[in-house]
């Protein structure tokens, strides 16, 4: 009965990512999209939050949104997986519900 959480805001501007990860249950997945992918890059102040999320579930970043922002696969925090649009659809289908953190 797991949940897919989407985050579309930069963690440096809003608390969407922090609030999201504060409400995760084991087995949940987080998908960063739009400006949310800014939190997927290694070396930032958001790393600890992402790492905490990785402990309870999986974390994904939408590849086209990363590419558009110049975030390369090698830049990602270890454990964060890239998905394309088809992968996004698969994630939605694999979970019982989707919660958007705006």
């Amino acid at each position: 009965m797991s949940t897919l959480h989407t985050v579309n805001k930069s963690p440096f501007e809003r608390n969407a990512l922090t609030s999201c990860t504060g409400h995760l249950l084991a087995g949940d997945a987080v998908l960063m999209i739009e400006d949310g992918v800014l939190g997927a890059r290694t070396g930032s102040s958001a790393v600890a939050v992402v790492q905490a999320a990785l402990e309870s579930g999986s974390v994904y970043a939408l590849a086209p949104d990363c590419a558009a922002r110049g975030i390369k696969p090698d830049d990602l925090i270890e454990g964060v997986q890239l998905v394309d649009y088809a992968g996004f659809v698969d994630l939605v289908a694999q979970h019982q519900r989707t919660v958007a953190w705006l």
Partner: protein
Amino acid sequence: MAQKKKFLYLNRKAPHGTIYALESLEVVLIGAAFEQDVSLAFLDDGVFQLMAGQDTTAAGMKNFSRTFKALGDYDVRKFYVERESLAERGLTVEDLMPITYEDENEDYAEKPSIHLVGRAELAAIIADQDVVLSF
């Protein structure tokens, strides 16, 4: 009739600076016609939507906070307010409007709609829903 589904409206924005809160309320009112099992959650700045004593007169805006008090009549009777979000903002439940509903099954006794929940409890409430709508 199809089985009732559990709908949760997740409210995370303060009331008057953006349109989110008012839009959420409008969707709740429209959705109430479908007679589903509806809950509202207030967390992060969303807790400010329930502040007592909002007066929008001078700001020239609609004071839709009063509309929350009508929701009991629309069978929207579960308001989950996150304790941590209140505390982070220096608020307690006493800062919020009292919101009640009348229980038809108990001679129209007035009962509180607001339930304080911890972050972990709210996570479990989210995980118990069929549909979560975010605002």
